[in-house]
């Protein structure tokens, strides 16, 4: 069953990829990241900072809208519930008669405003990045889910990086096409290159996660 979900994972994971060098990096040193070690281990500190960059992408609407904890996907920058009662279904692909691919084709349909990419689907619940009230989970919680091989389709760190680099639905987030009114969908806060770089930094640091509260 997991095999089928490969691409799913790819999606989320891919979002992870990202940034390193980003300027805004440690911006939130705030995040209750550390233990003592990180204070003295620059690599760990960089890794945690890089993670926050990755997290900023994962929780952007282009990514998190399909990483819900509920029975439905979201849409739009306001992350509203998807219209027309679209539901997750047993495999994250909708249900017979109302599949994700009933509308979402292999590429964006800009003339009608429907986004598309290969095998459009929701992330599995193990990769939910929101709670049931549609609020994004904390950075630490998402991080730990991501590195948990029982939840992430058994990807190791290198696998996560590759996912962020290559998975088509991850890449989609940076070419999300046009809305029905013809305007362009907004992009994640980092470029894809920045996202991959951040993921690499984080992976190189041993995929550290902010400490739980």
């Amino acid at each position: 069953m997991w095999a089928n979900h490969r691409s799913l994972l790819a999606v989320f994971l891919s979002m992870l990829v990202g940034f390193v060098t980003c300027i805004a990096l440690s911006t939130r040193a705030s995040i209750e990241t550390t233990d003592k070690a990180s204070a003295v281990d620059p690599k760990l500190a960089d890794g945690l900072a890089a993670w926050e960059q990755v997290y900023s992408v994962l929780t952007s609407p282009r990514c998190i809208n399909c990483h819900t904890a509920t029975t439905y996907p979201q849409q739009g920058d306001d992350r509203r519930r998807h219209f027309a009662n679209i539901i997750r279904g047993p495999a994250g692909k909708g249900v017979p008669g109302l599949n994700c691919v009933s509308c979402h084709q292999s590429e964006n349909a800009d003339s009608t405003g429907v986004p598309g990419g290969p095998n459009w689907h929701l992330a599995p619940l193990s990769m939910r990045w929101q709670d049931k009230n549609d609020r994004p989970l904390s950075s630490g919680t998402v991080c730990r889910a991501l590195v948990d091989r029982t939840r992430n389709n058994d990807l190791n760190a290198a696998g996560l990086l590759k996912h962020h680099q290559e998975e088509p639905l991850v890449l989609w987030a940076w070419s999300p096409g046009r809305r029905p009114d013809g305007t362009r969908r907004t992009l994640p806060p980092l470029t894809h290159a920045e996202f991959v770089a951040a993921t690499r930094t984080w992976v190189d640091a041993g995929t550290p996660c902010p400490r739980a509260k």
Partner: protein
Amino acid sequence: MRAALKLDYDLDLNRRSFLRVSIAAAGGLLVSLYLDLPATAQEGNQAPPPRAYPPDAFVHIRPDGKILITVNRLEFGQGVQTSLPMILADEMDADWSQVVAELAPAADVYKDPLYGIQMVGGSGSIAHSFQQYRELGAKTRAMLVVAAADRWHVSPDQCRTENSVVYGPAGKSARYAELIKDAARKAAPEKIRLKNASEFRLIGKRVPRLDSRAKCDGSQKFGLDLDLPGMKVAVVAHPPVFGGRVKSMDDKDARGIAGVHEVFEIPLVKGGGVAVVADKFWTAKQARDRLKIDWDLSGIEHADSSQLWTRYKETARTPGNVAVARGDDKVLDGVPAARRIVAEYEFPYLAHTPMDPLNTTIRFDGNRAEAWVPSQFQTMDQMAIAQVLGLKPEQVTFHTEYAGGGFGRRAVIDSHVQREAAVIAKRLRGTPVKLIWTREDDVRGGYYRPMHAHRVEIGIGPDGLPAAWRHVVVGQSLVAGTPFAVMMIKNGVDATTVEGTANTNYHIPNFHVSAHHPTVNVPVLWWRSVGNTHTAFVMETLIDELATRAKIDPIAYRRKLLKPDAKKLRGALDLVDEQSATWRNRLPKGHAVGIACHECFDTAVACAVDVSIENKRPRIHRATVAVDCGLAVNPLTIKSQFQGGIGFGITQLTGAITFKDGRVEQRNFDGYNLPYIIDAPVTVDVHIVPSTEAPTGCGEPPVPVISPAVVNALAKLTGKRYRSLPLVTI
């Protein structure tokens, strides 16, 4: 149904109409009506020959035995395409399997016998044409019987009819189709006998719809499906605020698209717009999307919902024009505060949004025109088209096209869609053009159920019943400034604003209802069940609240409060009580019952619903509905209307059209929320009160009861009263 039918109509319902029989050009017997005859004219074969247009036939018996029956109404879901032919075929003793129904074009003979225009609305199709179609059937049958009797040299009394065959003495028989030529020479009978209810073979039976198969295999053609040689498709760019005008336009990009035929400014009923004419719809739409229009929006009101609410609520605190003043209005002020309720209600604008987008096709040939319109208002729409084209109405051949729903949206007094189409057709002279309103045009295009504020003050008597009731309604008039105003506005009160309140079936000794009709720059229109959408909600939720305060069962409380002469509603309430008793007494945990009843358009409805809360929304597990609609012509269709009308009524709980700076904030079904299958009751069981009274309508009456019934149930679950629609949070 054994009793004789209590229908004491004057048989000569169409006083100015006369029956004529003739041979159809293509063969077969035509039974027609014609109007406005010289005084000397008589019914029968001396009548003028049939005309090509406007047509006047109601029955066409073809040589192959098929019987074509003309339906003088739009079919848009309500089922008259089956029910009216049933009525005629029953009296005619026609073989039902050979009956084919056809929608009548616009013509005088097809006008509603009571309204005087050709239309569907007010649940009048069966109510007003029942007697007409029976007579037509009975007279046709009588002529066929006379033809057979003469052929056999027997008395008509010795003949009987069944399944399109006349049977005579000694085993003689003749199929109707064999009697065409003889019957055409007979004078239409002056006196006929209509059947007793016990003789009905179709009326009162569960007869499946005639249009089912075509609507299940894709072959049914609707107005939007029309395809004519050389036809063009038009879309119109409308101003973002009602009444706006085109200041300037850059149509270079639009014209650059292959297949775009013409782009030009057109006048609208309010303001102006830009028409795009192309070979195909998608081309036209793309071109419209590329128009750069600078709109002049000066000097027009920019409606704003939040400002309107503030204004409406303030207005509702002052007395309006008096609709009802019964008893002493001062009694209320004497009731102690502990026994008073003050309730303020909010209802938003609602769009009808029939599934089938608005459309009209017209070809203008200079001195004639032909129009194809899914119309609830044929007479008005034909006149409007003629006026724009500088023709007389009879110069516009007007085809009634099947419509995918309407709910009032195709009965527009100013015929704005048809006027747009006619303006475009005039420019395209000689070329047929189909105007399509996209869904966005429809959602943003106005003609909504008006928004309303109600303020009700109730003084409760020591017995727990309302002793005094002061009710103020604020909402735009549907007919002010139209030809309908004379009939429908009295003492400054639009009857459609207060119907359902002013004429309540509850006995309230001191009862005062008044109305304010603000003017707002938003076109408004009747929406299925009209004023009863909001008035029934207010009445039925308040009655429920009173019952709860009095600690009396809501059904018992209503029975106590109903006027003695509210027999229909009492009967419906009794029946719903009986039919829902079992499940009401076995409700699962977390479920509650909600009750509502209401009479409108002479049909009484009572409803009990089983509701729980799932995913923060009301989940309606079941609705039991009882209805008294007089004689039930087709119980299958009636049940269908009630099952569906209940679902349609849920729109009140889900949907809203709102304005900001004059613009509609919704654009399509992604923002204007409508009931899908999950929002509708899982089951709806419909029970019909047995009756031999004249049939009344079933299109409008199902709608009002469901919303109050659901929130009455919610109130039991949450302890909250819901007075602002739609339900945003529970």
